[in-house]
């Protein structure tokens, strides 16, 4: 689910990390899992795209697919993920042959993306901090990220 690196945390430290995450994301169910250590190397957009080597954002300082406009709009994010074969779809339900991602917006501006795993659960990279697994996309919605505005899907390879 995560980067595969074991978390170098004691049980007590893990409880602290979980409490901190829950403080930022009050809608998270208790079933969420912390699946990686913190890293500033990639963000949620990169994680949704399956890229752990770069920080994706449509500003000149960061990586953004050259075919997509470098503006913070939903359309620019859709175009960026179109370069990976994603197209808009109806919802985040599990479809065996499809990979899905969710785009979150706050007041119309993209803030976050999550990716559906084979199990149907979702994985999110929280800024420069941890990757987490969560059952429903809405669990990371709230004051920080707003809500899911659009789902994209592509045929699973």
């Amino acid at each position, binding site marked *: 689910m995560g980067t595969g690196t074991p978390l170098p945390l004691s049980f007590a430290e893990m409880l602290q990390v979980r409490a901190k995450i829950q*403080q*930022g*994301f009050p809608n998270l169910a208790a079933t969420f899992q912390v699946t990686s250590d913190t890293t*500033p*190397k*990639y*963000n*949620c*957009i*990169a994680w949704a795209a399956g890229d752990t*080597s*770069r*920080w*994706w*954002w449509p*500003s*000149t*300082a*960061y*990586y*953004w697919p050259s075919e997509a406009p470098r503006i*913070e709009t939903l359309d620019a994010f859709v175009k960026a993920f179109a370069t990976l074969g994603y197209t808009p779809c109806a919802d985040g339900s599990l479809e065996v042959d499809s990979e899905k991602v969710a785009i979150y917006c706050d007041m119309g*501006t*993209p*803030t*976050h993306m999550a990716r559906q795993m084979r199990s149907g659960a979702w994985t999110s*990279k*929280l*800024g*420069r*901090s941890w990757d987490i697994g969560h059952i429903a996309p809405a669990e990371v919605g709230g004051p*920080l990220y707003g809500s899911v505005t659009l789902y994209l899907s592509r045929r699973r390879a």
Partner: protein
Amino acid sequence: MSQTQFCTGARTASEWRESANAFGQWEWQGTHAPRTKGIILIRPAKEARLLWPESTQARFGRLAYQWEEETEFVSSSTVLVLNSAYQQIIGMGPTALPLILERLDSKGGHWFWALQHISGEDPISPEDAGNYEKMREAWLQWGRERHYL
């Protein structure tokens, strides 16, 4: 000199004391956390007093800590750089350059926008945009060449 201080991120008395003391020149004198909500704690605690004028280094440390706490879960580079603490650090001007570079070296972080805007330079190759380690190393090398590090 007696002046109330501003501190961020602290939610309990122990966190408040820890963050206040972390800046070296602050001393926690209270027994409970100020009654505040949210991530940004802007209400000064009457118990926390500035014992002597804040140095540039202490101010930078306080603002850097505030920025790191407030943007921990943020992916948007726009939100990262528009953060109030980050903007105040940019406002410190060239004085902040060695402090930012030292922080980038020791703790990491996305300090690239501040470095670029304070220095007026950008040592990062366009093909390295988004590659954190290469961006970080480019700026650290820039700092070493100018004897900031």
